[in-house]
């Protein structure tokens, strides 16, 4: 084996087995089950997992809570939809462009909110998303107002292939974010999270890394948002709504902030729960949101961060992988 490959395999070895398990399970199930309904449910779960993980790379690693995440999701959804409908761009082009735009706006918003902390940062993000939400109604001639934009070109020819495209995106996002979070970027973000002044005293340009995380967060959310819009062939104000932002926050937090794998689980499992509650359709949303509140109350740091997980060597290894240090010799 070449050293490069050996390095990659040894690195993969330190990644959480739980992640592999759930990705594999999600990859295998649709192929063996014939149930289209299940596949559609899982597609939604995968979408939310992408959102939750993308949210985590910023908030989980800096502890500045982004409450306006729908900005990137809906922003990319609308942009991709508009490019598709008005300029006849194929999704293969409009989605990456929209995601790029989301990433760039991440740079912008990240830069503008650099000096804000705590509640001020959070409310600013809420405000940005709120502005975009309002604009979607004001500019109803382009955005279709309440109705949104319909008739978007679908991703592929069928729900199963749609799912696998989403699945591949999720796998990509998962590994990229995990790699990023375990690289020097993640270490620096954690340092900033602990104490930004001390990070500065170590010669780190903290502003750069914060903006970078914001941009990455936006980029991946944009990918998720664009794919989602085309999977539904529709985009509407709900993709820009405060409810969506809050939902993503809850999914990621219940899973476990700051771990990437936590939000993966949170996104997938809670979305499946949401669907499972369809048996009581009339009350479903109410029960679902109520349960989310209960979960947050019981485990404010999230499942993966619970004491009983962290302190048990088996559970810790399964969910969080092996600890890797990033001293100068391992090339961080």
């Amino acid at each position: 084996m070449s050293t490069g490959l050996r390095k990659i395999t040894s690195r993969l070895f330190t990644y959480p087995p739980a992640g592999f398990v759930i990705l594999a399970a999600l990859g295998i199930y649709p192929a063996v089950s014939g149930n289209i309904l299940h596949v559609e449910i899982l597609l939604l779960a995968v979408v939310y997992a992408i959102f939750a993980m993308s949210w985590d790379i910023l908030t989980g690693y800096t502890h500045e809570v982004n409450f306006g995440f729908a900005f990137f999701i809906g922003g990319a959804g609308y942009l991709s939809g508009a490019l598709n409908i008005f300029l006849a761009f194929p999704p293969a082009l409009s989605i990456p462009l929209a995601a790029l735009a989301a990433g760039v706006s991440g740079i912008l918003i990240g830069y503008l909110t650099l000096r804000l902390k705590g509640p001020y940062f959070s409310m600013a993000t809420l405000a940005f998303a709120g502005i975009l939400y309002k604009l979607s109604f004001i500019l109803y001639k382009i955005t279709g107002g309440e109705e949104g934009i319909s008739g978007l070109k679908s991703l592929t020819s069928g729900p199963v292939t749609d799912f696998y495209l989403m699945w591949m995106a999720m796998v990509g996002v998962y590994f990229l974010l995990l790699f990023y979070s375990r690289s020097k970027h993640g270490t620096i973000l954690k340092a900033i999270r602990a104490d930004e002044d001390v990070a500065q005293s170590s010669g780190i340009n903290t502003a750069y890394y914060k903006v970078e995380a914001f941009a990455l967060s936006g980029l991946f959310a944009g990918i998720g948002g664009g794919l989602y819009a085309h999977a539904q062939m529709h985009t509407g104000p709900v993709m820009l709504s405060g409810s969506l932002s809050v939902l993503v926050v809850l999914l990621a937090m219940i899973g476990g902030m700051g771990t990437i794998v936590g939000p993966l689980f949170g996104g997938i499992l809670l979305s499946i729960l949401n669907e499972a509650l369809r048996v009581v359709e009339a009350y479903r949303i109410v029960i679902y949101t109520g349960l989310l509140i209960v979960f947050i109350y019981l485990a404010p740091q999230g499942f993966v961060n619970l004491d009983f997980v962290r302190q048990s060597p088996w559970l810790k290894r399964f969910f969080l992988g092996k600890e890797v240090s990033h001293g100068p010799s391992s090339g961080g």
Partner: protein
Amino acid sequence: MDILVIGMVRGALYSLLAVGFVLIFSVGGILNLAHGTFYMLGAYFTFIFYSLVFRSGQSGTLISSLILAVISVSVFACLVYQVLLRKKIESLVYTMVMTLALALFVSEIMSLLFGVSGTSVPSLVEGSLSISGVKVIQHQLIILPITGLILPALWLFLKKTKMGQSIDAVSQHRTGALLMGVNVEKATLVTSGLSAGLAALAGALIAPISSVVPEMWLFPLIKAFAIAILGGMGSLTGSIIASFVLGYAEVLTSFLIDEQLTEMVSLVVIVFVLLFKPSGIMGYKAA
């Protein structure tokens, strides 16, 4: 002239909303993202008490419904504080997320119970007046004297009563008040109820002349925050002034530019103040 009146009414309404928000933040350190929800519940509960409990057309019952609504929302807020928030109040992330999740939850319940298109509540005072040629709904004018009574009453409460003074002490210096023997938790509990009650009152007053829908929690929250940062997160007088500033800004935008942009004003205020106001928020490490 009409702008003057309408702006004043709006400012008065906003001051009820904002004062509570600032109060609970300076006393409990809680950025209560469910504040808009209490506003919304004020409206919905008024409807519930009025149409379901009393079922009569007299003004008296309407007033009682309003009062009951305000009281029940206050009690609800106290429960929320006691059960959900008290445990982890030091974590700002937790209180923000929990109150926001609560807002979502209540919104969905209202949606379930009353539907998405909203309900309606009759006015306290029917009819409209003509003030220098402009039709003004009489009910709107009622808001002014009510606010004019409530706010000074609040001031008296904070300055003259024992509980009020404890609350005042805590808002200025939590640890100091604790050391002086003030029961900080009790003060925070009372403030939660008080703050929610004010918001509920605003919601109840606005119910007859505005749509009562499940999403009506978000923008009052945003506006409360905009006013709070405009007026200073710790200053009640500041927030009252800022309430009128925002009220007039919105009315002017509505009349002079575009009615649709009214809701944007508060958002833009937030963005501008947070991004360009240079003091205090940008922390240098203390010496």
